[in-house]
């Protein structure tokens, strides 16, 4: 332990965070959302769109919203419908879409005695997910393990085919992880677009078909080069659980997944997205998908030196949210970032302190370490060395998921060559500094240790405050990123429903059962 942190202080922080998360969890457990329900439908095997390109899962929830009562949960309706029609959920969906079937009658029915009718369909989905898990695990165990951080780059052309070209090119240069960035605005869509897409701004639509296409391309590359390239997308925004479900089915390996990001930066309603997040994390936990949280974003808005503790406090909270969803620490890609103003004296020391701090407090987490973005300018040469310093910190503090900085960050979404240069940069640094962290001890009372202790203290104080005032109030006060949000505003509140006493989510239940079993095995 390089920083001599006080373990009981860390434990205290965890206690505060647990209480904060528990409070929210109480609210979560009493609610469902349109997106949670659509995710269930997707895991019952419902796919496709109607003639107006509306996904069938939306057709069904819209239908229930208009004609019936969503608070009963889709499982209620579909289980009755299967019982009566003997059709598959997919066929039922198609019938609803062409108005040859209505779920309205089941609204007044008692709690469904036919929920088990859903089991074969759920099993099919879980089996597919399990197969994907197995595939990933086999691929990963057959590969030599890296000792330096995994190199993560984004593709964001807007066109999935162009993205594939760029992704494969990056893999050739040594990238371990490819993230397909989403088009601006998708997170506010209350449906998941359908099919392969070629038009996007600052990113590419997250669709099941796009996931498939990219997964296939990366698998082919991996097979040829005896590597496994991890794929990332965003279970985030208004369709969090649905995208988590699609990601689980299509073997994504990581998902950006963090309600706080959506609340703060996308003005998504906090209730909505906390509820969505819970189910999405259970799905990801079940599917062995690493989540990436978005604390790094706070520092793109607030000053990174002054607000370092907000990142740490949020990581503690996100850890507890993940634990409630039965995630193992090895799936918690907690986010942090290298965003201190390069004009600050000793900036490297402060960055190193912060990175070591996260590393030491979350030893098992595959930390997601974000490159400098805010202080990159059009001076691409300077940007390249800002990224090099970031790479040094990443290697020295043993970060896990190493997002590569682009020298053109302030200019455009990355060109193919920008990405290649970034990989060269990181590869050179990883080699040159390979054993550096074993070579040095941080001096007592030095700037690094003092800073780490200070940030931990401030984070603890903040957690105490949040625990006292409650997370909703915290968000209202704009304590994260200086942006204020209230529980009654924001996108997607209309899609939130208090669960009916007869509500049930059989997919969640099955997943939780499996996860609990696993948990017990491990203990």
């Amino acid at each position, binding site marked *: 332990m390089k920083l001599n942190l006080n373990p009981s202080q860390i434990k205290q922080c965890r206690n505060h965070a647990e209480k904060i998360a528990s409070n929210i969890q109480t609210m979560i457990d009493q609610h469902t959302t349109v997106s949670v329900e659509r995710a269930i439908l997707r895991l019952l095997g419902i796919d496709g769109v109607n003639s107006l390109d509306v996904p069938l899962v939306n057709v069904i929830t819209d239908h229930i919203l208009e004609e019936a009562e969503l608070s009963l949960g889709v499982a209620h309706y579909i289980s009755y419908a299967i019982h009566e029609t003997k059709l598959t959920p997919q066929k039922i969906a198609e019938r609803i879409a062409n108005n040859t079937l209505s779920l309205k009658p089941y609204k007044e029915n008692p709690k469904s005695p036919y929920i088990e009718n859903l089991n074969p369909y759920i099993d099919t989905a879980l089996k597919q997910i399990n197969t994907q898990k197995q595939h990933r695990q086999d691929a990963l165990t057959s590969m030599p393990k890296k000792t330096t951080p995994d190199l993560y780059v984004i593709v*964001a052309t*807007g066109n999935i085919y162009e993205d594939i070209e760029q992704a*494969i*090119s990056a893999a*050739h*240069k040594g990238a371990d992880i490819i993230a397909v960035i989403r088009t*601006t*605005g998708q997170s*506010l869509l209350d449906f998941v677009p359908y099919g392969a897409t070629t038009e996007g*701004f*600052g990113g590419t639509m997250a669709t099941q078909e796009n996931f498939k296409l990219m997964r296939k391309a990366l698998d082919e590359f991996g097979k040829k080069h005896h590597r496994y390239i991890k794929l990332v997308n965003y279970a985030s925004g208004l369709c969090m659980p649905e995208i988590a479900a699609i990601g689980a089915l299509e073997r994504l390996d990581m998902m950006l997944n963090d309600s706080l990001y959506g609340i703060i*930066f*996308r*003005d998504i309603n906090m209730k909505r997205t906390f509820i969505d997040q819970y189910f999405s994390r259970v799905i990801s936990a079940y599917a062995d998908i690493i989540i990436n949280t978005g604390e790094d974003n706070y520092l*793109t*808005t607030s000053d990174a030196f002054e607000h370092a503790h907000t990142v740490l406090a949020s990581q503690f909270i996100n850890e507890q949210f993940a634990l409630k969803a039965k995630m193992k620490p090895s799936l918690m890609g907690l986010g942090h970032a290298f965003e201190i103003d390069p004009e600050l004296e000793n900036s490297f020391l402060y960055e190193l302190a912060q990175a070591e701090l996260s590393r030491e407090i979350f030893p098992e987490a595959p930390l997601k370490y974000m490159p400098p973005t*805010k202080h990159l300018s059009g001076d691409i040469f300077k940007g390249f060395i800002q990224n090099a310093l970031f790479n040094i910190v990443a290697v020295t503090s043993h970060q896990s998921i190493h997002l590569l900085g682009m020298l053109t960050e*302030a200019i*455009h*979404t990355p*060109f*193919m*060559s920008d990405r*290649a240069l970034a990989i060269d940069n990181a590869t050179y640094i990883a080699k040159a500094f390979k054993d550096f962290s074993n070579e040095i001890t941080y001096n007592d009372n030095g700037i690094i240790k003092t800073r780490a202790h200070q940030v931990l203290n401030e984070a603890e104080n903040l957690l105490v405050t949040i625990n006292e005032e409650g997370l909703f109030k915290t968000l209202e006060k704009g304590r994260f990123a200086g*942006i204020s949000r209230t529980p009654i505003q924001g996108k997607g509140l209309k899609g939130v429903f208090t669960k009916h006493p007869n509500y049930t989510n059989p997919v969640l239940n099955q997943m939780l059962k499996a996860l609990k079993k696993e948990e017990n095995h491990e203990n």
Partner: protein
Amino acid sequence: MKIRPYGDTLHDGKIQLSFTLPIPCSLHGEETAKALVKKMGIHDVHVVHATPLNDNYSFYILYGTTHHEIDPSTVSVTDVDTDTLTKSDIEDYIEQHFNRPLIFIGASTGTDAHTVGIDAIMNMKGYAGHYGLERYKGIKAINLGSQIDNETLLEEAVKHQADVILISQTVTQKDVHIQNLTAFIELLEAENKRDDFIVIIGGPRITHSLAKELGYDAGFGPKKYAFDVASFAVQALNIKLNKEV
């Protein structure tokens, strides 16, 4: 006087370029890169670095000497032509010329979620040591935040009887900002409201000349702060409302 780029001798014309070609990396690739650069009127081209990005793409770094020269005195600059005032001058100016507070309404529009730029101009704190409009005496600053669609922005502007509308655009990929900005001007015109406001845009890729081209009153890019914007706005409002020149 005509000038050329400068490496280490006046007018030697030395420039550096880099780009990717969608062809494999090879001597032929290098020659193709050179031939392309020669078409640009650049001679003595040296490919100093050539590297494959994958089997079908290759990246080149080149140095060369440009034939082209330019007389700087022939280059005209479209810049805001009002004087730049300090915060306190602006406050005095408002007090002198208007008998009411001026209302500025702003947003980051369309699907753009970037607020740091508009906040830099509008919020108390400002940016890089320059206070934002909210702190100006005589200015009422209403910041709607981000992801505001054009219709909502106009509605709110009308509702608040705004004098000045401020629009921030950060995402520019595939010119999405141009589309969005053009749509707002069209909306104003369709509603016959173009003359009701001074409309100002800003963002990292916004220049005053682009703003004029798109039909806006002014545009501000990087390293522009609240006082730049307010300087222009108060003077433009004085001309417009008080018919002073």
